[in-house]
């Protein structure tokens, strides 16, 4: 219980720190946002007017507290460019990005975990080396290039096996679930292959720790074969660690997801954020970044709590002694 409270406190503190960081980076770093937003050749009056409109002429602490107050009320502001509320905008984009991330993660787990187990079980010098190379090469392919190679293979109209759409998302969205899912298939596969490689590496090293341990020997002396022992006992032992890894991978995936969304022209969070940064849409960028960062902190929190719940050994060893435990 103490651990849970501590962890929740950490979450709140971190959320505050993130809000300060996002705010400070967007305001204090060089470059007058209002001037950039107004355009290169706009008269100074227009810049001043814009600054007043955005509330940029008020003292920074006042601006910050104002923003925080709005956040607490759930008001993320209105985009300067589209005139829509940021919350609606993010909601529409998340309907593309989250299914993509989840689909990608499922594919990654389907690829990474069995391969990781096989790699941990491999005993021959040569087969070990091959598994290692597969995981390293899989993780070394730039997302952009891997996605393009997949389009070349499967993309409708261009690919060798042109079966799947490679551009855009149906305008009817999830109203036509089949079309929506099909348009996410290739992007999810691109993300999944890359993440799968890193998941494979983690699985192998998590299992590898137990393969040489007394647990496996014990299970084997009870009559299990080595494979059985590793898959039943080892995988069970490695489970808490795996949950942590999958959670962290989830956060790492966002980089690949942003590139892939742009490549496949999907109207998701990544594409949206990049467009807003390109347009210097300060209000939108500020709100979206905070929401994304908060989301990642939330994942970190859930993962830590799940790790704790799954691994009874952690509970036994001095409850909450170490914040990072």
């Amino acid at each position, binding site marked *: 219980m103490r651990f849970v409270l501590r962890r929740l406190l950490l979450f709140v503190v971190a959320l505050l720190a993130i809000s300060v960081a996002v705010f400070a980076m967007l305001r204090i770093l060089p470059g007058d946002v209002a001037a950039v937003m107004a355009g290169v050749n706009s008269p100074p009056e227009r810049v001043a007017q814009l600054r007043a409109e955005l509330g940029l002429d008020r003292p920074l602490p006042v601006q910050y507290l104002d923003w925080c107050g709005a956040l607490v009320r759930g008001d993320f502001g209105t985009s300067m460019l589209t005139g829509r509320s940021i919350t609606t905008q993010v909601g529409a984009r998340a309907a593309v990005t989250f299914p993509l991330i989840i689909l990608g993660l499922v594919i990654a787990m389907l690829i990474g975990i069995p391969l990781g187990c096989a790699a941990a079980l491999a005993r021959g010098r040569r087969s070990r080396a091959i598994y290692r190379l597969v995981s390293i090469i899989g993780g070394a392919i730039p997302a952009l290039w891997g996605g*393009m190679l997949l389009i070349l293979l499967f993309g409708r109209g261009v690919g060798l096996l042109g079966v799947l759409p490679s551009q855009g998302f149906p305008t009817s969205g999830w109203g036509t679930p089949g079309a929506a899912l099909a348009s996410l298939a290739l992007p999810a596969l691109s993300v999944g292959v890359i993440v799968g490689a890193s998941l494979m590496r983690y699985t192998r090293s998590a299992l590898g720790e137990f393969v040489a341990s007394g647990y496996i020997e014990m299970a084997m002396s009870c009559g299990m074969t080595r494979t059985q022992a590793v898959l039943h006992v080892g995988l069970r032992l490695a489970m808490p660690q795996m949950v942590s890894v999958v959670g962290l991978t989830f956060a790492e995936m966002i*980089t690949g997801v942003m590139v892939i969304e742009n490549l496949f022209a999907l109207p998701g969070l990544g594409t949206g954020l990049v467009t807003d940064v*390109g347009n210097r849409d300060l209000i939108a960028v500020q709100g979206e970044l905070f929401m*994304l960062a908060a989301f990642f902190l939330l994942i970190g929190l859930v993962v830590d709590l799940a790790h704790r719940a799954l691994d009874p050994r952690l509970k036994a060893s001095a409850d909450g002694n170490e914040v990072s435990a």
Partner: protein
Amino acid sequence: MNDANGYAAVVLRSMWRRASGRFPLMVIGLWVLVSVVSLFWTPRPLMQTDGYHTWQAPSAEHWLGTDGTGADVFSWLMAGSRTNLIIVILTVLVAAALGLLFVAAMVSRHTVLAGASVVVVDALISIPTVLIALVLAVPLGASVAVIVIACGFGYGLNLARVARPQALLVARSAYVESAMADGASGAYVLFRHIVPNILPVMLVQLSLSAGTAVLAESGLTYLGVGVPSGTPSWGHSLATTVRFISVYPLTVLWPGLVVTVVVVALNLFGDALRDAIDPVTNPALRQGTGVSGKEDGHGR
């Protein structure tokens, strides 16, 4: 100093002796060489475009063909290697400096500072690098600095987290205790005792980060917040041609291949380094002081 040189020589020689260490050393050596050569010579001038010969297949004139503006792909990749090298070196330096700073704070005797820094590192580590880069890009625009700061910061946090257990062990050890009792300063303890002990962990982590930095460069450049348009880099070559992969697959093949090979090499380098600097797996380090390099060359 001599001691450190001898140690480095033994480690490098041990890496060279195995195929899995020789390959990354060769790729990295070639990378540095090409970067230097590209400063003085490329087969074609970078800015020489030719509207009549766009998207050419590889030929004697253009070794890897030309891109959509008729510029020579091979020359751009050569010139790009130096930009990527600079990015990687700067990123690794920033990550090492920040990582050390975080480690120092996390193991400091000042309990409030230590506790607070552990909390801060844990919180910030869950923020993806690309988000930091996007924030930085708002005031800075597309630039090398965005990549270096964002990646250096993110990898520095990772480094601190990985190195902390070892550093903590040293910081609470009896010899550090006695050094402090003798009036040694915090900075002295950090560089005299903690750094040498966490150096192996740091080097391995940093070489893995170097690979990630190369990948991050291509991703961020494609998103328009990395290397500015017109500056040669592998990510730039990839980003400007990738849309045309289905029409001209041969042109797009090369930059992706270069990035993949270099990242594989940096990862293998990290693994080989881990084996070479660990006295358990590397017998050369166990013989005496490990400085007697010449004899080691013949042993096992």
